[in-house]
């Protein structure tokens, strides 16, 4: 397995390089270093000298990908792309174009994001699996039919509606929790309660329907019939056999998103005033801060690759027939 993991991580290097090239090209197709300088320096009274100084200080005065003025390898290394890319592979994110340490900002902002995404993920998963198993239990009855209708209705409603509706009902009308804000420690509970509740409810329709389908597929297999024939209770059949055998498709969708939980949720954080990472990349794109954009895209790619590797590893844990080689 170790050899497999090493090989997978080695494959990640060209993928990350490719992601970097694409990010770089897309960013600089839209924004030139001059545009970046103007936006950072402000729109009033900006002079050409100030723009040149700003670019020079941050290395944006160099050619993008190929430096004709240099010789040998420096033609490639004395460029904006090379200077911005190499350190990323050492996980040195450097400083943002506004002078902040990116690694520090990420380390500060990922915890509020996790405070939302982790409970939403865990509670949501437990609740959807439980409800989906229950619906599978009542398959073919009017309860199943109504549950499917409700699930389809819930998944048809926009996530934004859940947020605004939840804030209106629970924060404004019932006045049970602050409508937005954040605090640390135990005081954070009252701020997290509403976004977590909304996050869980918002994902309920889609998750339940998806897991119900998986369980119904499993429930008609021979081993289930055998388990019933053995005289096992329906509860034992569902939790002891169906759930275990349905874990592979569940893990396929679940484990891969685990590392990305650090990155937070843009809309939830914006509406609830959570100081997380959700808006970090968007803010950077708006302020044309390439240093942050490349760092976050790189981090997102790394986390996604880690998620895929973890998914593969988790297969071996739930299904002894799977071998990683």
């Amino acid at each position, binding site marked *: 397995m170790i050899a497999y993991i090493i090989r997978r991580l080695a494959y990640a290097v060209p993928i990350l390089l490719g992601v970097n090239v694409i990010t770089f090209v897309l960013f600089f197709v*839209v924004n*030139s270093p001059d*545009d970046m300088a*103007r*936006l*950072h*320096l*402000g729109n*009033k*009274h*900006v*002079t*050409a*000298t*100030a723009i040149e*100084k*700003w670019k020079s*200080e941050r290395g944006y005065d160099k050619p993008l990908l190929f430096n004709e003025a240099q010789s040998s390898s420096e033609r490639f290394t004395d460029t904006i792309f090379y200077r911005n890319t190499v350190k990323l592979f050492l996980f040195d994110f450097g*400083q943002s174009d*506004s*002078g902040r*340490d990116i690694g*520090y*900002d990420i380390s500060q*902002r990922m915890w*509020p994001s996790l405070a939302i995404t982790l409970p939403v993920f865990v509670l949501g998963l437990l609740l959807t699996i439980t409800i989906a198993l*229950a619906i599978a*239990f*009542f398959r073919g009855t009017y*309860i199943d039919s109504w549950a499917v209708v409700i699930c389809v209705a819930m998944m048809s409603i926009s996530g934004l509606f859940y947020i*605004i509706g939840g*804030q209106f009902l629970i*924060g*404004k*009308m*019932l*006045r*049970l*929790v*602050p*409508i*937005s*804000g954040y605090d640390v420690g*135990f*005081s954070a*509970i*009252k*701020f997290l*309660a509403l976004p977590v*509740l909304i996050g869980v409810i918002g994902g309920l329709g889609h998750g339940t329907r998806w897991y119900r389908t998986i369980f119904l597929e499993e429930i008609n297999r021979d081993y289930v019939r055998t388990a019933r024939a053995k005289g096992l*209770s*329906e509860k034992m059949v569902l939790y002891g056999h169906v759930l275990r055998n349905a874990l592979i498709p569940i893990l396929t969708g679940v484990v891969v998103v685990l590392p990305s939980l650090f990155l937070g949720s843009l809309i939830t954080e*914006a*509406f*609830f*005033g959570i*100081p997380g990472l959700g*808006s970090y990349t968007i*803010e950077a794109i708006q*302020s044309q801060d390439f240093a942050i954009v490349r760092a976050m895209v790189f981090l997102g790619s790394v986390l996604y690759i880690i998620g895929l590797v973890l998914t593969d590893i988790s297969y071996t844990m739930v299904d002894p027939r799977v071998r990683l080689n």
Partner: protein
Amino acid sequence: MCVTLIGCSDGPLNNPYAASSSSEAVFYDSFRERPKHLDPVSSYSENEARFNSQIYEPVVQYHYLKRPYELTPLTAVALPEPTYFDPSGQQLAADAAQEDVQETVYRIQIQPGIMYQPHPAFARNENNGFQYHTLTAADLEHRATLADFELTGSRELVAEDYVYQIKRLVHPHLHSPIAGLMGKYIKGLPELSTRVAADEHANDSFVDLRAYDFAGAKAVDRYTYEIRLTQKYPQFRYWLAMPFFAPVPWEADAFYNQPGMKARNISLDWYPIGTGPYMLAENNPNRRMVLVKNPNFRGELYPTTGAADDASNGLLASADQRMPFIDVAHYSLEKEAIPGWTKFLQGYYDASSILSDSFDQAIQFNPQGEAQLTNVMREKGINLVTAVTTSISYLGFNMVDNVVGGDTERARKLRRAISIAIDYEELISIFANGRGVPAQGPIPPGIFGQIGGPEGINPYVYEWRDGHPVRKSVAAARELLSEAGYPDGRDAESGEQLTLYFETVSSGPGSKAMLNWYRKQFDKLGIQLVIRATDYNRFQEKIRKGSAQIFGWGWNADYPDPENFLFLLYGPNAKVASQGENAVNYQNPRFDELFVRMRSMSDGSERQELINDMTEILRRDSPWVWGFHPTGYTLYHDWYGNVKPNLMARNTLKYKTIDAQLRERKRGQWNDAVVWPVAALFVVLLISALPAWRTYVARQRAAAR
């Protein structure tokens, strides 16, 4: 969860603040955009000024109550007056002509005894050396914020601190937005820039600017300094009221520029250091900013005089009392408007602007067209203040464009016809909820040079009828268009329909209605308007290169002087030729000549006449469709006192009062939790689950059989 929340709260459940702060004089507000710079040399935006202006103290400030806007000493002993000198060094009269002046000197004396806020940069060790000026990597190992430096100190403000900050304008790593502009006026500033840049080596090194001899600014004694300008520039006094000219102690730069500080995000850009009434206690722009009273603040007295009706409005009730009145100011980040508005209505923010979506909930117009609060707002004790902003939103014609630009009568008439056809009264009504005043020229109300009444209207677009300016008819616009050679919007020679191009960065669904509205305005004349939506960078590039034809633009006053608006049309400031602020590239030698004379004059009848002449030239040439001046609406609760809009001053927190007891009482009344629907929901869920339970039991029994 509900039980947990009830159990851990001793106030309203939805109170977003610590219960202990409920009865203190704390001001609660929100901010939408995080401040980028708090270093006064780089900070130049509104969302930064609201924090910086409470912390830093320039030598002068705007009088909080008096109108028109008036400068008054802040740390200075008296208002700085310029002294003019001719090339031979002879002093000239105060009204000396621009061309006679070789040098202007501002000699400024500051008050003694003003102390800086407590700060580690001033902390001294037992040998009276600086405790934190020679930090090693080991010293910084466990320090991540300014609060991790245990010791603090302070010192008296001296004139050299103001001089030091002026030198910082050209520090190569600080990128002051006004360095280029001030280089034109302050003596020796460009040369100083070159010298400092040459000496600058490492990114983190401290360049001690005190060592640089600089003709533009010098400390004469401990409390007096001089600024020397290369010409007559009366508007410089307004710049002196901005944080760019606030004092920065050299100790701050020495402290923050040590190796390792920048990597820890410990910088003056993040942790300001000033002498003002407040200091920044928490800087977390992703969550909240907290200002607390500066314990070393000398105490300034609330003004005893104001505008005519200030006394009757209760704005002089605090006269002669020592400021600031508020102990803590708590600003929370609210990226979305709806939660912020709800929290204002719940009493958790003391003041708020008005959302377009909530406008009808808050404001109604009486038969005279005046904005009033709705009954719902009045019953809550909410108050409204409005003020026409010192800004302008206009439509620009690129004067180097072949069709709409140029100094020909044909182009002039075309521009005037379009100016009549675009019904800004309708735009303000539809898209701004009536919050704006149609512009009659470039100068907004409240700034010297702008005239109201029948004499002040733009006669090329408006007529004065029944005591009001009335936009000329579309028929008049069509006639002008016909005279311009485009009868019914078609070129008289080719017969082709006139097609014009409107550049905009507005492209989302939210902008569609307004862009369609613009199309309809041009359609009134038979002109086809093509919308060219583009991203911000390309838009800016088109303006810089002069390839845009018609575009929307705006300007917000730096200071209350007509020069700050008329310079937007001064020829040498043309965008294409000199990358200046004249975005439409307007050139008129007569206007330029009058501008040069006007800008160096003091306010008075002679200056007013010049401005009238200049405005007439502009109205005739119509390089802009004059657009409108937006009106700011602010709502505030009745526990928030001494509220008066001041569009120039940003350091207004110190004047405000909070009645914390009243706020506490009202918050309690407004925020009683309603718990029964939660209990009812549980009951409904239980009842709904009963059939499922019965089915489950039945199945289990069936399986058992």
